[in-house]
């Protein structure tokens, strides 16, 4: 009953999405307020209906109702409750339903919080959201129905893939989709503006919070996914340049560019056409990512060709939305008036440079990801494009961008003074040189890379602090005055500084891990001690453990220095009984910002065990940096300017006063 109700709710949601696609748009065309006003309630109702469908699917997972094919394929009665819930989206059908749930959630947010938008813009935005919703609801209903029944119902389910039975599944996909799909709002705003033929600074002001929110979630989703892969897959890598990773990384890069160009548009009403294009491209890359992951085209062009129903459907959605929006752009972009002018050396100029590097980097990842597919489809030749290619191309593109980051916020709008900015950054530059020198002298005299990486990271962190110090006149005004000024700075200034600092911390984590990590591959017997860079790791022994739906062999280790225990680690090899599938559960000991990573291999014939141990200095900074970026975005979102939405005159004077 619940299952059919869920299915029915989904069909209703599809019908409502069609209404939402057409009625507000028609209203906006003929200037009929009552038709335009339909968009809001329909968007809210659509979200409620998809919510009911999603709740119904979750309920069938909790009940382990194996008469539903999707539950039978991906669940098991002995699975812990957390994974029964998260298993709802740990499969194709469920994850598409989550995708649409989040899409309608954003539509509902626009409906609920967009009351101060001009009526036609709001109607058009909701209509475009309706198109996307209708397309994907049709995809679910026709090719990926999560509510299909089985008759007779099997007695037991086939269990969720063990790798997904992890807290990561509870956090990573929802965050990632909030980011991915959040960019749909920017897309809808861009298309609505093109339909209207009008785009101004107020438009950028409305778009920015959505971009910021989507970017924040996507940053979290990617960081979380990276950490999950790091601890779950058992060989301690944090980024693999896997096509599926790239699929989420491209919208992030383009979204980062969008975030910055929208600032220029809001403050100086320049880069309008470019910002609109970028908003379209960012969500197009989200759609492309969905296609790459969901169609199976990545595994092989041939796998795609053998069961093309789903793939072709998403490809059609892709072509219609990307092709349609770009055609609309080509047709209407000319009618958008160009905005303010600026000198190349200015805040605007710096942000253009940021966009140049970020979009080139996005394009590089895009070409690298699609090249093997296109080449195989066209010529039949198979080549591989993997991590070494991306490191060699993406790295050099990021380097100048990272070096230039601290300059941006210190340049004035319209016409900046690069020498003055450089002078203000002298302290940060000195600090970075010192960090480099210390790294080279104290830690490692061989690899220049290490010193450069640490120096670059210090440069970015100190540069971000310099910006705050400058804006609060620290050092030039009396301390009390500059403290008051610091407290009075707009939140977005703190947001910028935090986000840039986060990039610096991530860079430090990556540089330190790549340069200083040590790896030890040995065979150990119970009682053996391995020397890990002057500290000792003692293998205590192994014991069998029985979990709710698995059995494991758990090995205990003690990590110590000069006889003083630093911590205990347990690392395991697990066997999930339902699927007879083995996994490794790496043992991780966090000491400060660094981690000891222990992974078990096979047992050897003489009673020992292959043990892999990595000491990864400062590795946690890779993800903590992402967290700091997220906090920066959150702080920026609470900026008064965004909180009040469309600016009233009063709010505008308040902001102006605060920034003086």
């Amino acid at each position, binding site marked *: 009953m619940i299952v059919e109700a869920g299915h029915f709710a989904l069909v209703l949601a599809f019908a409502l999405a069609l209404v939402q696609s057409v009625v507000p748009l028609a209203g906006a065309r003929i200037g009929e307020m009552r038709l335009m006003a339909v968009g809001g309630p329909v968007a809210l109702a659509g979200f409620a209906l998809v919510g009911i469908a999603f709740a119904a699917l979750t309920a069938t997972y909790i009940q382990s109702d194996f008469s539903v094919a999707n539950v039978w394929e991906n669940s098991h009665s002995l699975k812990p409750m957390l994974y029964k819930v998260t298993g709802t989206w740990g*499969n194709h059908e469920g994850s598409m339903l989550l995708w649409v749930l989040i899409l309608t959630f954003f539509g509902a947010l626009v409906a609920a919080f967009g009351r101060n938008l001009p009526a036609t813009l709001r109607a058009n935005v909701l209509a475009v959201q309706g198109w996307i919703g209708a397309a994907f609801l049709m995809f679910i209903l026709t090719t990926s129905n999560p509510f299909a029944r089985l008759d007779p119902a099997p007695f037991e389910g086939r269990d969720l893939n063990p*790798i*997904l039975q992890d807290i990561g599944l509870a956090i990573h996909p929802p965050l990632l989709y909030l980011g991915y799909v959040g960019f749909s709002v920017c897309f809808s705003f861009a298309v609505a503006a093109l339909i209207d033929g009008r785009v101004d600074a107020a438009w950028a002001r409305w778009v920015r919070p959505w971009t910021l929110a989507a970017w924040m979630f996507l940053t979290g989703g990617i960081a979380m996914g990276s950490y999950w892969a790091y601890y779950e897959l058992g060989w301690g890598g944090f980024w693999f340049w896997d*096509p599926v990773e790239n699929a989420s990384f491209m919208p992030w890069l383009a979204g980062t560019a969008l975030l910055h160009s929208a600032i220029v548009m809001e403050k100086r009403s320049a880069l309008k056409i470019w910002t609109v294009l970028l908003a379209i491209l960012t969500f197009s890359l989200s759609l492309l990512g969905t296609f790459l*992951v969901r169609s199976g085209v990545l595994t092989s062009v041939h796998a795609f060709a053998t069961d093309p129903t789903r793939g072709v459907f998403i490809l059609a959605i892709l072509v219609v939305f990307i092709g349609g929006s770009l055609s609309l752009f080509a047709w209407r972009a000319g009618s958008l008036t160009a905005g303010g002018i600026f000198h190349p050396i200015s805040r605007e100029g710096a942000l*253009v440079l940021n966009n140049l590097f970020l979009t080139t980097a996005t*394009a590089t990842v895009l070409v690298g990801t699609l090249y093997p597919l296109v080449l195989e489809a066209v010529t039949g*030749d198979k080549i591989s494009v993997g991590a070494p290619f991306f490191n060699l191309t993406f790295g050099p593109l990021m380097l100048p961008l990272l070096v230039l980051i601290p300059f941006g916020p210190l340049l004035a709008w319209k016409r900046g003074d690069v020498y003055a900015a450089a002078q203000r950054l002298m302290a940060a530059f000195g600090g970075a040189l010192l960090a480099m020198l210390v790294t080279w002298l104290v830690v490692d005299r061989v690899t220049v890379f290490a010193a450069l990486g640490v120096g670059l990271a210090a440069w970015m962190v100190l540069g971000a602090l310099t910006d705050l110090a400058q804006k609060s006149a620290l050092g030039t005004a009396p301390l009390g005055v500059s403290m008051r000024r610091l407290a009075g700075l707009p939140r977005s200034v703190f947001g910028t500084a935090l986000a840039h600092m986060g990039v610096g911390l991530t860079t430090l984590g990556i540089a330190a891990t790549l340069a200083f990590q040590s790896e030890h591959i040995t065979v150990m017997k119970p009682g053996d001690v391995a020397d890990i860079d002057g500290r000792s790791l003692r293998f205590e022994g192994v014991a069998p453990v029985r979990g709710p739906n698995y059995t494991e062999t758990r090995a205990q280790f003690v990590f110590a220095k000069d006889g003083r225990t630093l911590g205990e680690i347990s690392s395991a090899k697990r066997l999930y009984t339902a699927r007879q599938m083995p996994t490794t559960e790496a043992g991780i000991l966090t000491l400060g910002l660094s981690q000891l990573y222990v992974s078990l291999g*096979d047992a050897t014939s003489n009673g020992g065990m292959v043990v892999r141990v990595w000491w990864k200095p400062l590795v946690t900074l890779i993800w903590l940096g992402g967290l700091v970026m997220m906090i920066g975005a959150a702080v920026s979102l609470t900026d008064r300017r965004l909180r009040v939405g469309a600016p009233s005159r009063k709010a505008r004077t308040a902001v102006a006063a605060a920034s003086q």
Partner: protein
Amino acid sequence: MRNLALITAILLSVIAAGPAFAVQPDEVLADPVLESRARTLSAELRCMVCQNQSIDDSDADLAKDLRVLVRERLIAGDTDEQVLDFIVSRYGEFVLLKPRLSARNALLWGAPVVLLIGGALLAVFTVRARRRGAERLSDEEQARIAKILDGERG
């Protein structure tokens, strides 16, 4: 990320991703210089039966064979380039995770450079043209000024 790759893979029932043990202790060469060269080379070679894994990361039997082969060639005195050539001659270019610079891959390697330079030129010209356009007065404005000046004279 990776786990999404796995979701996809699982859905397509292509692979059952098992634990990765990669390099075994008995494979490790006594000479640390040779071993480190072997590791660097291994990271550039694809495990042919895996989904986007290097032989350095993979526990597949084929990956182990290749790792051993790389080490054998190194001990035999091959340069890094000779080792790669040898493996490509056996398994084809598909085995290289960093495709070679060739006519076929020109677009792949050229794209970042062309896009960066093209984008930079486009940005410079657009900003310049806009500035020049803004400095010059439109015909209408010229006419108005002429009128005002005429009025003053007259």
